[in-house]
């Protein structure tokens, strides 16, 4: 029981972490809570679903293709919704973000219908179902492994991108000070687009994995997942990428144990409660800095 919950928690936690990283990166460069990020995650699942069912692509091809589409969606979202408001007060951008989130959710409802759909299981590689390891009464399928490995690879890749590449350096510069970054010759808008693309690709990947793992996808799936991932980002300290990774995993494990031992009815409530408590007690999160000065919210 304990181990099983731990494994479940780590699996879902890794996925939360992937979404949370998107929130945190976008917050880092544009100081905006991108409410529509959960919708990108949902779109990832639907893109993969469409590529598999309509185009008949195999899972391994649909997965990266859907990620690319999500990256494009992220960039378009930035260009059409957020870029015109870059000099506007926070409140305007926040309202736009929440508006885009609702818009995308309902657009998906129009395109794909509002009912939950099963993920095309036949497209998944057959060995996913097979048990890879079995210890202490816990069965780890290859699918668990796939998610673990992919999450770790993507997180490591992201970390290296931010730390080692020119683009990553530019991103960090933009996050620190846009004006200075622009003065040193960084194309700030392009860096922001690039960040949205990265965040979108990771969010989309998370969406596909969740849809395939739980075998269901529906247009409102991004709403709860987005909120939970945001809770993870807050827990880790918003703006901090390693914090978001850790926050996601901690939240996933807390949720699995909470659902297992306390009350499964309040499964979703655990993340919200954690988020509210963290915000009240340690607003800086585990790795972040305190937002002391109130930025103009209007």
């Amino acid at each position, binding site marked *: 029981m304990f181990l099983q919950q731990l494994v479940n928690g780590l699996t879902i936690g890794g996925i939360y972490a992937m979404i949370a990283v998107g929130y945190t990166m976008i917050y880092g460069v544009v100081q905006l809570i991108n409410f529509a990020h959960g919708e990108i995650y949902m779109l990832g699942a639907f893109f993969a679903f469409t590529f598999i069912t309509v185009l008949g692509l195999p899972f391994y091809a649909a997965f990266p293709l859907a990620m690319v589409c999500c990256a494009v969606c992220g960039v378009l979202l930035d260009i059409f919704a957020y870029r015109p408001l870059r000099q506007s007060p926070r409140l305007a951008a926040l309202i736009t973000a929440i508006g885009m989130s609702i818009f995308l959710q309902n657009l998906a409802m129009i395109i794909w219908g509002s009912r939950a759909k099963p993920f095309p299981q036949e497209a998944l590689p057959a060995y996913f179902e097979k048990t890879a390891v079995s210890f202490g009464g816990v069965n780890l399928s290859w699918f668990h492994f796939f998610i673990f490995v992919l999450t770790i690879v993507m997180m490591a890749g992201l970390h290296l991108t931010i730390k080692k590449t020119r683009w990553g350096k530019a991103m960090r510069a933009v996050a620190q000070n846009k004006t200075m970054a622009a003065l040193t010759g960084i194309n700030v808008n392009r860096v922001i687009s690039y960040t949205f693309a990265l965040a979108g690709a990771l969010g989309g990947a998370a969406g596909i994995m969740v849809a395939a793992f739980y075998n269901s996808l529906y247009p409102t799936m991004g709403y709860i997942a987005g909120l939970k991932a945001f809770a993870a980002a807050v827990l880790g300290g918003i703006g901090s990428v390693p914090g978001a990774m850790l926050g996601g995993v901690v939240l996933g494990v807390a949720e699995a144990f909470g659902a297992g031992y306390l*009350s499964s009815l309040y499964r979703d409530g655990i993340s*919200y409660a954690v988020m509210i408590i963290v915000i009240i007690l340690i607003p800086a999160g585990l790795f972040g800095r305190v937002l002391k000065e109130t930025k103009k919210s209007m």
Partner: protein
Amino acid sequence: MGKLELQKLTRGAKIRIGLLIFALILPFLPFVTDYLLHIAILVLLYMILALGLNIVPGFNGLLDLGYVGFYGIGAYTSGLLTYHFGLSYWVIIPLAFMNGAIWGILLGAPTLRLTGDYFAIVTFGFSELVVLFLTNEIWLTRGPLGLPGIDVVSIDLTLFGGPKWEFIGELPYYYLAIVMVLITVFVMYRIQDSRLGRAWFAIRDDEVAAVSCGINLLAYKVIAFAISAAFGAVGGSFFARWMTFLSPDMFKFWESFLILCMIVLGGMGNIWGVMIGAVILVSLSEVLRELLPLLGLPADVRFLAFGLIMVLMMRFRPAGMLPIAAVAAQMRAGRTKRRKSKPAMGIKK
């Protein structure tokens, strides 16, 4: 005064009196069916809610995404007190008001110290927790089964040997709602012109300047949030007794969004604008609800339009249809440019 001298009234006052008379005789117009009257009550209810929410984003410049939580608290306060104790609606209104305010203070006091972003997300989480509580605490709320058979509103004078009137049909509720809207609007105007309101506007316009004038930011923001929550709860208490049925589904995030959209469309901080926003969006919502199934789409898709309205309003007319000059100046792009740049949250480590 004696007789009303029409010439001496300003144009605005004439419009107001005209609208009020129209609202009062509306139920007796020939084309008004029960369904239309129902929508009219819904419009009035949303006016109360939107006016209540308006305090937070409109007067204080903070984003509140969890307003429906307080609406739900008020509705269930009203529903449960009626269901279990048979309390009169007239007793319930102040109780719901206080309950809303208490929760507003409990949530607001620790979180309003933080920046607006965190506040927005905490309110969001709070309203989700309220819905979860209402769904899961079956011993109290009957959970997803809902709370049926809540008594209608009645005026009971039997204590004084008088008769007892029960509110049956839509008509009495319509007039009750009008009275409640009038009281709400009156309170809002008085608050807006009071010391409290001026302090809020100062906070909205420039927090640093407000603090240096001796305004206690946290205290004033918490008061704003509590009053806003209290009006949400009053709206909920009316809703419970009018619908005579409650279920947790009625208090999903969509409602918060719809109310926020009314404010954004009408003009943040503008009492008239907010009321017009309520009229437009409730009507639009009802029209789309009828129209969309004809196109073979689920009725929920109407929120697509609301999302689009919000994005477009922010892009092209951020201060709303009836903008207040101060808000318009605030929301104009480029405002933040002049401010000293803040140490941004860096991607660290």
